[in-house]
């Protein structure tokens, strides 16, 4: 049993007035009282968290944990610990593993390993189609029973529109969303970076914006026709975002997320870094105008969640010339800090509640995971220190990734304590804040 004392409280709806003390017992919040009225018992252990914010546990909808089959890049243990260190109590593992998570036994493998990993709870996802080949849909009902929280062929789109349509229909009765990585492959094939100013200047093959936009519009059309539950992941262009905005206005059951790297970097970053392979990612870093559009989408509510698309690789797969490098950015352990820091530097374009929402209740709603922090709630908490400054040092990561474009960045605003079902799974608080009376 743990007392968290003197925290600001984001309960999943709003920041409550004043400071609060929370007692976590047997995995739940059993007491929730204003700090000034609280009198502690003698034997209580408490954390003095003056000035910090307690939020419902953060959820990452999109992380590549590479397990089974690619464990030189990451595995469920390292991924779970990395997620906890990044402030996440829950992380959805992408199913493009080897083999792909396309049948119930593999979902069970991920779920069971994830339950004992010791960091964030790892939530499995399954593929939409068998072997991600875009033909036959998977056993979604059985996979959901084993714990799959969403279905996606991520890494690529659901290649066939027909398979996607069938999946959207089928999933209506399963009650789990289809997450789409939107990309028209015939347009993006061979591309390295966004098609734009930078590709014109440097001759790297461009990935046209239309590749994503067509993918998003296709998915929206199928969602409209089937009313199936659709989640569009890692949106990077302003046109795709606008299409989603209009679809939501029509009342379609659509949600979407963006990544931290599309919020922090644009294509010019690639030139300035002299083609650092750490910035190679799909969808590619777009233009400054797109970055602005995404920040506006966070503000106006079009975007439901921020998801990392954490994509770790072995050094040998990234520390090569840009064109030879794998696509993907590793960020689980600094994603929250990166976004808070940039939100600060941009002059706080929206409330801090909104930031917390984008990492907790927002993604929670996408997969039906309740995120709130009231009396009796599950004790899943992320504690944020908005004033803590810290430098990203990839050599200390719990993730196996050792290459990230964030390495060396100093960010202000870090998660400092991650609690899953009442158990501390990550702690970077100073020792003196912990008191045993």
């Amino acid at each position, binding site marked *: 049993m743990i007392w968290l004392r003197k925290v600001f409280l984001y309960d999943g709806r709003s920041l409550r007035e004043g400071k609060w003390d929370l007692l976590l017992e047997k995995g739940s919040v059993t007491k929730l009282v204003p700090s000034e009225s609280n009198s502690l018992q003698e034997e209580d252990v408490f954390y003095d968290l003056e000035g910090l914010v307690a939020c419902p546990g953060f959820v990452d909808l999109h992380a590549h944990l590479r397990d089974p089959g690619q464990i030189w890049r990451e595995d469920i243990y390292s991924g779970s610990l990395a997620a906890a260190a990044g402030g996440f109590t829950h992380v959805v593992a992408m199913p493009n593993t080897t083999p792909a998570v396309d049948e119930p036994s593999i979902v069970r493998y991920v779920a069971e390993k994830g339950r004992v990993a010791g960091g964030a709870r790892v939530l499995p996802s399954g593929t939409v189609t068998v072997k991600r080949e875009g033909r036959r849909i998977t056993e979604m009902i059985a996979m959901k029973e084993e714990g799959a929280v969403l279905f996606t062929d991520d890494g690529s789109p659901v290649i066939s529109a027909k398979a996607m349509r069938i999946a959207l229909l089928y999933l209506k009765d399963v009650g789990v969303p289809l997450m789409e990585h939107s990309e028209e492959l015939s347009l993006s094939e061979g591309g390295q970076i966004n098609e*734009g100013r930078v590709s014109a200047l*440097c*001759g790297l093959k461009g990935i046209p914006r239309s590749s994503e936009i067509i993918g998003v519009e296709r998915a929206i059309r199928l969602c409209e026709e089937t009313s199936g539950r659709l989640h569009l992941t890692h949106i990077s262009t302003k046109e795709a975002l606008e299409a989603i905005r209009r679809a939501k206005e029509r009342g379609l059951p659509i949600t979407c997320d963006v990544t931290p790297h599309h919020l922090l970097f644009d294509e010019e970053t690639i030139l300035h870094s*002299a083609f650092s392979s750490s910035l190679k990612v799909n969808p590619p870093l777009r233009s400054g105008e797109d970055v602005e559009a995404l920040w506006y989408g966070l503000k106006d509510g079009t975007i439901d969640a921020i998801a990392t698309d954490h994509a770790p690789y072995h050094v040998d797969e990234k520390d090569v*010339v840009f*064109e030879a490098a794998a696509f993907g950015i590793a960020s689980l352990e600094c994603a929250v800090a990166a976004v808070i820091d940039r939100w600060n530097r941009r002059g706080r374009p929206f409330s801090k509640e909104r930031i917390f929402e984008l990492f907790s209740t927002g993604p929670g709603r996408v997969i039906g995971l309740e995120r709130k922090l009231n009396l009796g709630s599950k004790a899943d908490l992320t504690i944020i220190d908005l004033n803590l400054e810290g430098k990203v040092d990839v050599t200390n990561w719990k993730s196996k990734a050792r290459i990230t474009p964030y390495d060396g960045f100093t960010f202000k605003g870090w998660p400092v304590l991650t609690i899953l079902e009442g158990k501390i799974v990550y702690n970077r608080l100073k020792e003196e804040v912990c008191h045993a009376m």
Partner: protein
Amino acid sequence: MPWKHSHLVDVDVFSEDDLYMVLEEACKMEEVMERPLKKVPALRGKVVANLFFEPSTRTRTSFELAEKFLSADVINWSASGSSVSKGESLQDTAKTIKAMGVDAVVVRNREVGTPEYLINKLSGTCIINAGDGARAHPTQALLDLYSAWRHFGDLRGRKMAIIGDILHSRVARSDIHAFSKMGVHVVVSGPRSLIPLHVFDLAEYEPDPKKAVEGADIVYALRIQRERQEEGLFPSIDEYHNRWGVKTELLRYAERNAIVMHPGPMNRGVEIESSVADGSRSLVLDQVRSGVAVRMALLFLYLAGGAGR
């Protein structure tokens, strides 16, 4: 004036003064080439590795000759390597070269950014870019500039039309930088499917080749790779040649004394008509000769700091 650059990645970082320094140095090197004994001891005791991951007999030979005229010791490292492990083999090769202690690496690779990659991995070794992907080919641009400058003298206010596959051309990108810096008005032309969508960030674009060469002093034909047709980027060689091929008929629109350039090797009857390639306006062989002089000049500037010849 000492040479202040340590590596040659692209010409975009050169000031006009830098460019003149290269041109003037190349003049002196051309004199060396005219001597009966074509050898100076400027780089005696220096080791240069020519690292060519892409087949290129012309550029490699030109560098090798330049290195030998300057008395450098030369290693030719033609990596055949499988295309799958290109990145890996580059990393290993870089480590090997570093261990051997060469003074300069001349590198040609399919992959954009190779020079910067090597600069990172081989601290202390001078890296000379002999072409990286579709991005830069600075020594080609400088030899083109040298040829045109020798022909015309001051280039300020002149017009250059570059015609062909701009999208995939490192020559075009580097030439645009080099000639623009010298005050040349550069216009590019070619089928839209072979032009970057954001070409306006690179140079002025004129779809009609006749208008592009109108009043031009330099007409530069780019080599067309036949794979581009196989990729479906243009329908046929005939259609390309008829509209964008540099022909006598097209040159009527250019200045009376206009010259024709091509980076070689030429596809006669495709991007350039034979009679133009071999005609009096063609500077193609001058370009080849200039290549050696300019590469000598660059090696001298980078490896001897432009002093103590």
